[in-house]
């Protein structure tokens, strides 16, 4: 498989997972939150400083349909993450072929 094809396929899988499958994810508290609740330190959590943001809680404000709202948040998050991490990796990568991997 060509690298470009592979990367595109991977991105499509990620977008499907975050944009569609995420709707069916468990809404129960995760391990840490559950333990915090059970043991009794959940109430020490402060309100999130970005709790009023336009995509807080993986829901896009103004989009009423929960499936669309969550899916859109997932897709945006994936693309932003891809851009930031990919851009960082491109900036950090070695460009000089002489500077080969020492392994």
């Amino acid at each position, binding site marked *: 498989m060509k690298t470009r094809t592979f*990367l595109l396929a991977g991105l499509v899988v990620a977008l499907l997972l975050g944009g569609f499958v995420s709707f069916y994810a468990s809404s129960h508290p995760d391990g*840490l939150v559950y*333990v*915090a609740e059970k043991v009794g330190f959940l109430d020490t*959590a402060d309100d999130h400083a970005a709790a009023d943001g336009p995509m807080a809680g993986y829901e896009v404000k103004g989009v009423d349909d929960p499936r669309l709202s969550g899916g859109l*948040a997932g897709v945006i998050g994936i693309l932003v993450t891809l851009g*930031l*991490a990919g851009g960082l990796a491109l900036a950090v990568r070695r460009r000089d072929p002489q500077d080969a991997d020492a392994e």
Partner: protein
Amino acid sequence: MHVPDGFLDAPTSLATGAVAVVGIAVALRGARRELDDRTAPMAGLVAAFVFAAQMLNFPVGAGTSGHLLGGALAAVLVGPYTAALCLAVVLLVQALLFADGGITALGTNITLFSVVAVGTGWLVFRGLQTVLPKRIGLVPFLAGVAAFVSVPVTAVAFVGLFAVGGQAPVSLGAVLTTMIGWHVVIGLGEALITALVVSSVVATRPDLVRGARPLLARRTLEIRTSPTAGGAVS
């Protein structure tokens, strides 16, 4: 396992912030050796995939869920330093855009995910790789084992931080045992997802799996057919 604001006091959060900054600085240096024109886009994809996978909470019984940490997965796919950067980007996006994981707790979360989970995952993976037969077919399995171990270890690391900077007068023993108990179960999900993803990449493009590269280099040197692989070595 995203830590919200307030669980840990300010000094502890500052300390983990410092650990995170040092960790990222080290990762930026180390990632240079892992990244080239071919693997840099892979790093972006891995970060995006981990972000997506972390949205997928799977039930682990009794009203609890778990989701992928992705530390071991990212480390095996793109190398530990790049993985640390990928996880840090994911956490930054989650905290700032989606209010998932506290902003004052960002250092704590980067310490837990990028340093502890990635570090544990990679060390276990490489440790097993050195003692077990050097077979590429083993890579997904070893990644799964590393992923499994990384989850309870990260949970214990959180309890360690909570012991220092926790804000509630609760029994540390209770925090420790319940955290380990649930995260061993969550670790099974982490192992399964990691092994599945790594095996599908190994099946299609093993050369893009960092943890498989030492095995592939040996193979291409023996066969001497691939001009591209030969060029990459020089």
